[in-house]
């Protein structure tokens, strides 16, 4: 008896025909999806090649968009896109953090469910509706605020508006419509629900034990938020913000409806005139010849690569954080 030692048995996995078929079909589905996703990049690159070949490196430094005159580049477009996205994120992140904290920390039970529903619904509202709101509702109400900021804080470079002097009364509010600020605000409203729902998810995973430990040590609610909730949710907050940034960079219709396009770098966010890559594509694709389309494809490819990069970074940040990648 004693010398018979149990040997671990070799397990041989035998799959029957339906299982093999299932795994085959599922893998084929996975491969198809992967192929489609790779095709997106490939086709764009293929179609963008003539324009990129023509323009060379000046594609990234030229501040103009005149493909027929062979003079075009994404320098102004990229700056404009990033500025709009930055304004959007600057507005969306504090709002989302406050709302997510309100939902997880402050709201009474019923309010919580209602708010979660409202936020999720807002994430599903079409962007064209936000565009309508921004153009017809927000613009006329925000222009006086922009004028006030320009008049009193014009000495800060990004708030400077040409033709506005701190001592002169402002002649017309049209200087302040169709600006980067308004476009960014509308995009910010669009990405806020997305960021909020990610943050809420993360904040609700904070271990109750740690929360109660902080309260038991005499911490106030603000203390609990500062020392427990925010450190725990940091990864999710950064990840959610970057996902929102990715959405903001790619937003087309709402931006298109609001801005009046300019093709030089426009760093003054209050001043009328702004541009983004995606709105340029929507603006110009109809009247472009094949070379113009190729140039637009090149711009689209640039945008695509940037959002891809930001999204990769976002998902790796979320996955490495303590709250994990469960959402």
């Amino acid at each position, binding site marked *: 008896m004693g010398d018979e030692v149990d040997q671990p048995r070799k397990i041989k996995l035998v*799959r*029957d025909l*339906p299982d093999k078929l299932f*795994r085959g*079909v*599922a893998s*084929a*589905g*996975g491969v198809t*999806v*992967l192929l489609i*996703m790779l*095709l*997106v990049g490939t086709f*764009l690159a*293929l179609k963008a090649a003539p324009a990129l070949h023509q323009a060379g490196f000046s594609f990234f430094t030229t501040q103009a968009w005149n493909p027929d005159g062979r003079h075009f580049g994404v320098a102004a477009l990229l700056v404009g896109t990033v500025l709009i996205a930055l304004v959007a994120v600057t507005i969306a992140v504090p709002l*989302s*953090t*406050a*709302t997510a904290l*309100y939902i997880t920390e*402050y709201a009474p039970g019923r309010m919580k469910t209602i708010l979660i529903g*409202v936020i999720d619904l807002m994430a*599903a*509202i*079409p*962007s*064209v*509706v*936000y565009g*309508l*709101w921004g*153009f017809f*509702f927000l613009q006329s109400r925000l222009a*006086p*605020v922009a*004028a*006030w900021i320009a008049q*009193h804080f014009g000495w800060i470079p990004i708030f400077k508006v040409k033709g506005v002097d701190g001592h002169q009364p402002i002649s017309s509010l049209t200087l302040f419509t169709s600006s980067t600020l308004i476009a960014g605000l509308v995009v910010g*409203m669009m990405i*806020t629900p997305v960021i909020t729902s990610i943050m809420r998810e993360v904040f609700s995973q904070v271990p109750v034990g740690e929360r109660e430990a902080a309260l038991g040590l005499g911490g*106030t*609610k*603000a203390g609990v938020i500062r020392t427990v909730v925010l450190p725990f949710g940091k990864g999710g907050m950064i990840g959610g913000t970057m*996902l929102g940034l990715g959405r903001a960079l*790619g937003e*087309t*219709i709402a931006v298109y*409806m609001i801005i009046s396009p300019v093709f030089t770098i426009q760093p003054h966010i209050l001043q009328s005139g702004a541009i983004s890559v995606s709105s340029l594509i929507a603006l110009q*694709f109809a009247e472009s010849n094949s070379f113009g*389309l190729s140039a*637009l*494809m090149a711009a*689209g490819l640039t*945008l*695509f690569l940037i*959002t891809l990069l930001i*999204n*990769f970074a976002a*998902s790796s940040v979320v996955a490495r954080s303590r709250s994990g990648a469960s959402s």
Partner: protein
Amino acid sequence: MSTIPQQPEAKQRSDVGQPTTYLPQADPDIVTVPQVRRMTGGVRIGDALSLVGAILAALALATIVSSQIAPIRGFLAFFLVTYALFLVIYALLVWLDEPPSVVADRVVAVLVQSGAFVLVLALTSVLTYTVIRGRSAVVHSNLLTRDMTTTGPLDPLTSGGVSHAIVGTLIQISIALAITIPLGITAALFLTEVPGPFARFTRTIVEAMTALPSIVAGLFILSSFILVLGFDKSGLAAGLAITVMMLPIMIRAADVVFRLVPSTLKEASLALGAGQFRTVLNVVLPTARGGLTTAIILATARGIGETSPVLLTAGYTASLNRNPLTGPMVSLPLAVFEFVKSPEPTMVARGFGTAVVLMLLVLILFVSARIIGSQDVAKRARRRQQRKAVRGVVAGLVSRFRPATADVATSSPTSTRSSDA
């Protein structure tokens, strides 16, 4: 003996032999006040007063600032200044009679609550403003039944409509769903059921593609389907563009749902001798059904609202086109976009009306997703049992009141048995 020194009487009587319990007697000299449960929450009058005082002071100060020091135009600017002043004054008031940690707590509470309030206010204004502006167009039923073939920009709202856009939206989203649902679910099953480095790679790519700018999806279809393969701009092309945009969203949501299926259920099925395919078919898919439906509906809502891929691939038409293979086909968001580009107020009103129709469509989808998503397996089973019980009772009643047949004597035991079933 020494264990109960406080009760000498008990020691004296211990020789009786019977173990007895003595209850301590209440001392009549001590007057006991009934304990009142203390309120740990609630509002102290001082806190409420400092809040109200801060609001009043901020309003007054903002009026002075805006009228005397730095003139402000518009309500929004006035509100912002008031808010900033309110924060400072409130912090100051609390600081007068509370320690700094409480000051921080109050300020954070105000910031968080007002942030949430502003967001809800802004989002509500998006909805209400659209509905208010679209009201004049929505009340005319021809918005839903006519197309724009014979309607010019100057025609009143009683002529023309967006039936062509509604049909177009439905056709395009059907094409997208016909591809997205089977392919998306298969791919999500691949990610969870056939794990390995390749599945991990695919998952990374899919997750990165969820932020694919929708205009890039349109550009892709424009460059491949229309320019390289030589098809026209059509409903099919728009459907494909929406597919490319929806597919990563769908896969990611389905992947999360599949990962939430308890592994114990799957292991139980495998332990009973079922193969992987049987397990997926009989355990994974039924368990995930509610979540999958929610994922599909939410992806549909996203797909319906997308304008930019359709703008690049569908073309624009004012007439009804039921054929997705040839000719341009307009969708609801695209129609909104084209209407409001017009300078005519009636066209803009029509655009808002179309936006209301679009939002209603999204709302219906969203609410149905909520209802389906809130039903888990347990709830479904309970309802099935309730239905069964009701059916049993009904069957019992029916058999009881059935007109007397040959075996009247046995009818009543039968009915009790059927109602038990």
